[in-house]
């Protein structure tokens, strides 16, 4: 028997859970289906840094809005979501990076994001574990940290409370016009189908310009007070945004538990979850170069996760030109925890035909498909890298 839903959300990561909650909130009959449980994909592998980023005006707009949504939601979040308003310190190693600090402060100010410049002394006082002689940092107080799987579970519980249904775990094997086929042979009928499968979105829509970008993280035992803010090197911008190369960057996050998460790495072409020891080592050496004593802490576990990367570093949110019933909510690369809430608002607006709160066009999947409809992703990537 099939049942007609207004919206079927495929994928119960943090993005799918957020979409389900917004769809239910606006009164859509909503179902959610995931191959496994809630928040077990990239959502369970990520850092949970809620961060404003400014690679492009569209990225700034989305991250800033979504960060505000998280701050509004924070009082409702359960304690296990471990929401903490830690703030980010973008660490500048030298004078050249300090110029970037000043540029960013102005940019953030114009976008209404308050930030503060720390000089070398103030930085050493704020984070005594950092190596001496750093030039300074930009402190973005409104950035936060949370535990993504618990946040996703909360969003899903809210969705269910507002009437959405979480269907028993089933892999989706195919999408067709208004139809979702499940592994057990059954089908779901839906007015709109939201593909929120993260890096797995291409299994259902092979034409999507998404590539898996593997990342490594290491978690330590509890060392409360070792660092106080999320610490990221300004060079992160360069490495996170150079599309072509494998890279590592210094990115360390203090968790509410007192543990530290050590990141981060980016690599294309890796399809399995095993550890790349060369990259792990480069990542740890990078962290040690900023926090000389971090090597003396005990690591408990290292793991990998897959970011869904797009050629222009912006997510794919909105209608899919190939089928009017499809709506995408994927391609969030390293920012899907941050931008999940804003993504969900854009998706709900798209499905209900209402105006969105920020311009939605920059995230439309159609941006990749105007020239040659449904061109294969690899070609698009090649062009983007060259361009």
């Amino acid at each position, binding site marked *: 028997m099939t049942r007609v839903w207004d919206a079927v959300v495929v994928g119960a990561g943090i993005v799918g859970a957020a979409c389900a909650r917004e769809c239910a909130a606006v009164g859509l009959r909503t179902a959610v289906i995931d191959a496994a449980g809630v928040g077990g994909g990239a959502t369970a592998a990520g850092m949970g840094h809620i961060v404003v980023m400014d690679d492009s005006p569209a990225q700034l707009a989305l991250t800033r809005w979504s960060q505000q949504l998280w701050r509004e939601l924070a009082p409702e979040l359960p304690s296990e979501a471990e929401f903490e308003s830690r703030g980010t310190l973008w660490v500048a190693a030298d004078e050249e990076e300090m110029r970037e600090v000043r540029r960013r402060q102005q940019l953030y100010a114009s976008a209404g994001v308050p930030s503060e410049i720390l000089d070398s002394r103030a930085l050493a006082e704020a984070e005594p*574990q950092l190596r001496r002689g750093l030039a300074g940092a930009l402190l973005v107080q409104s950035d936060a940290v949370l535990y993504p799987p618990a946040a996703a579970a909360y969003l899903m519980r809210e969705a269910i409370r507002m009437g959405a249904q979480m269907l028993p775990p089933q892999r989706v094997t195919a999408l067709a016009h208004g139809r979702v086929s499940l592994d057990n042979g059954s089908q779901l009928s839906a007015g709109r189908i939201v593909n929120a499968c993260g890096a797995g979105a291409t299994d259902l829509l092979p034409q999507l310009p998404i590539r898996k970008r593997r990342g490594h993280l290491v978690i330590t*035992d*509890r*060392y*409360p*007070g*070792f660092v106080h803010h999320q610490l990221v090197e300004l060079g992160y911008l360069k490495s996170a945004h150079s599309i072509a190369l494998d890279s590592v960057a210094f990115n360390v996050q203090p968790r509410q538990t*007192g543990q530290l998460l050590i990141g981060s790495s980016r690599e294309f072409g890796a399809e399995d979850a095993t550890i790349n020891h060369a990259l792990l080592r480069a990542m740890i050496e990078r962290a040690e170069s900023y926090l000389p*004593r971090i090597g*003396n*802490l*005990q690591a408990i576990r290292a793991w990998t996760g897959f970011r869904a990367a797009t050629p222009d570093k912006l997510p794919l949110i909105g209608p899919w030109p190939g089928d009017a019933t499809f709506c995408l909510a994927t391609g969030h690369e390293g920012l899907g925890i941050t931008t999940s809430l804003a993504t969900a608002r854009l998706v709900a607006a798209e499905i209900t035909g209402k105006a969105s709160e920020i311009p939605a066009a920059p995230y439309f999947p159609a941006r990749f498909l105007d020239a040659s409809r449904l061109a294969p992703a690899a070609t698009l990537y090649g062009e983007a890298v060259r361009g």
Partner: protein
Amino acid sequence: MAEPESIALTVDEIVVRVSPGTTVAAAALIAGSHTRLSIAGEPRAPLCGMGICFECRVAINGVPHQRSCQILCAPGMRVTTGRELAIR
């Protein structure tokens, strides 16, 4: 047979004398102490005795999270039980 020399160490500032070959976990219990405090703050003491359970963690010479059941006492060692130390 000659008396083996005893080893003196401190457990939370209490001086304990043990014979060579004694584990730090045994020394902590001899001193009348537990080893760690759980996350909720309950006292915990060794469970497995073989390096598996991590209940015997103490700080040794200021270094936290040491599995005391697999470490032998050494002269002058400073053992601290209870909450994990923050910075080393």
